[in-house]
């Protein structure tokens, strides 16, 4: 077990180097120097100040030297300070991550709770009315632009019906509410963002689950179970479901970048102060250190997600565990 985890960690090293190289190149592709933006804000800055800033960021050195000094700081998660408010980038990101992770994890749970039953029953009743209806639903889900759905729901539930607030994370009177009131307030603000973020992943996973389940139902051990005279219920839920669920672990790991990436759209529509909104704001303001920081952290979160998924798979599948 330990040697497996160790091997997986070693394999991460080239990926980490690659991630750092690409993030670094992305920023250096930009025409003009990062200091231009900061200097535009204050036209009066003299040439000397400009040189001092360039020296501070090491922009006067050759690009390889810049990369290695940047890499050295990145290893300590030091991304410098934001151009906008001069606060440390890692602190800015750290205070935004919990919101985004909370929304992502909740929507992931919601996806699992809905997509797995849909997939399983579509497979069990293959070709039935239910299966066909769900196929239509999957096509709709794949084609629905999440931001359009968000606007429509905002318009209907927020503007027309006034049921729920349409922006932000808490109401103005939040601080005066009781504990339950606070939770309810969060819930009201988060229900739309979470549902929308879940909706985009729903179609894919339910389709995937259906294919898995159909494949498992055609295997020899299911035929044996049937021949043994087991009830359908036992076959489907004790034997087939367990095996069809295994690959879902990997898919959950793989769906993480999509969820984190999707946060840019949902969070900026609903004005939720998460990592996606932070990224959007810094892109709009050309706040290079923050853009670079979020790029790297986003990729790291994906790596960690995949690592956890692989380790879970290792635990869950006795074939791998005993084989290695």
């Amino acid at each position, binding site marked *: 077990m330990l040697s497996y985890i160790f091997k997986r960690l070693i394999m991460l090293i080239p990926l980490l180097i*690659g991630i750092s190289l690409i993030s670094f190149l992305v920023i250096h592709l930009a025409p003009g120097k990062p200091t231009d933006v900061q200097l535009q804000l204050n036209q009066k800055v003299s040439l000397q100040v400009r040189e001092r800033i360039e020296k501070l960021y090491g922009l006067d050195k050759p690009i390889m030297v810049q990369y290695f000094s940047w890499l050295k700081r990145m290893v300590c998660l030091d991304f410098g300070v934001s151009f906008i408010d001069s606060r440390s980038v890692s602190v800015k990101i750290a205070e935004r991550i919990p919101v985004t992770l909370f929304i992502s994890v909740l929507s992931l749970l919601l996806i699992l709770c809905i997509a797995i039953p849909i997939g399983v029953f579509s497979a069990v009743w293959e070709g039935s009315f239910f299966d066909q209806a769900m196929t239509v639903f999957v096509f709709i889900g794949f084609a629905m*632009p999440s931001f*359009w759905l968000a*606007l429509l729901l905002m318009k209907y539930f927020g503007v*027309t019906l006034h049921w729920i607030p349409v922006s932000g994370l808490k109401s103005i009177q939040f601080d005066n509410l009781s504990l339950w009131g606070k939770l309810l307030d969060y819930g009201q603000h988060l229900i739309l963002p979470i549902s929308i973020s879940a909706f985009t992943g729903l179609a894919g996973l339910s389709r995937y689950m259906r294919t898995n389940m159909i494949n498992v139902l055609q295997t020899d051990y299911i035929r044996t179970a049937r021949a043994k005279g087991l009830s359908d219920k036992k076959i489907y839920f004790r034997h087939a479901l367990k095996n069809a669920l295994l690959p879902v672990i990997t898919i959950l790991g793989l769906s993480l970048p999509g969820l984190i990436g999707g946060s*840019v*759209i949902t969070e900026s529509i609903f004005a939720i102060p998460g990592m996606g909104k932070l990224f959007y704001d810094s892109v709009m303001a050309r706040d290079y250190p923050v853009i670079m920081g979020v790029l790297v952290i*986003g990729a790291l979160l*994906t*790596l960690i997600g995949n690592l956890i998924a692989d380790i879970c798979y290792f635990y869950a599948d006795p074939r791998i565990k005993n084989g290695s």
Partner: protein
Amino acid sequence: MKRILKNKLASAGLLIITVISLFAIFAPVITAYQPNDINITDSLLAPSAAHWMGTDLLGRDLFCRMAYGARISLIVGLIAVSISVLIGLLLGSIAGYYSGMIDAIIMRFVDIMLCFPSIFLILALVALLEPSIVIIMAVIGLTSWMGISRLVRAEILSLKERDYVLAARACGVSDFKIIMRHLIPNAIAPVIISATLGVAAAILVESSLSFLGIGVQPPTPSWGNILMDAKASLGIAWWMTFYPGLAIFITVLGYNLLGEGLRDLLIPRK
């Protein structure tokens, strides 16, 4: 072609795509307006006989802007996918054919690219390079080839040991010719399917970028930036939100249907 028309999914998809393409091609013919004719007195008119889909805040005819927006969406989708197919074919066939060290390097590169939440990478690149239609197409293409290269690699790995390839190699045919003439044509079916689905994905990405204000820049109309304008008049003008979203939805649906239909046709079930 006949086989495509016999397949229900594929022909439904093809029908949708044809209608939307005609809408885009004949944009100047079917509307009596110009996409950027500002007419403040006609601000936010509801759909009527004069303005089939109503007007926006600046009094521009929405039907006309939708038609010109269709051009953007379709062109961006098609060109972005062509770029990603080219890169995917090139890297995938090199990795699959030569295997060993080159394969390992290319595939690690694919893994690295897949680590980035793609919308982060796209947003950063587009914003840093200044948004324009060409940049958007290039960036979407450059960040979406990974799936195709994996497909091509897998196909070529299984094809390259076949007898006809060995025979060609024995005759002294160059590697380049073997890949281009013998391997890629036989590996193309899954690429066509994935490219068709890729057009749908690229259209979605372009419209979300434009919706966020980092895509196609006003006054050039695109379905995404019409929706961005719609956000400001959300409570007043339903048509501004409804039509562009519906257009994106239907177009994406069309390409997805065609892609799934082609999957049924090109890859025989076991």
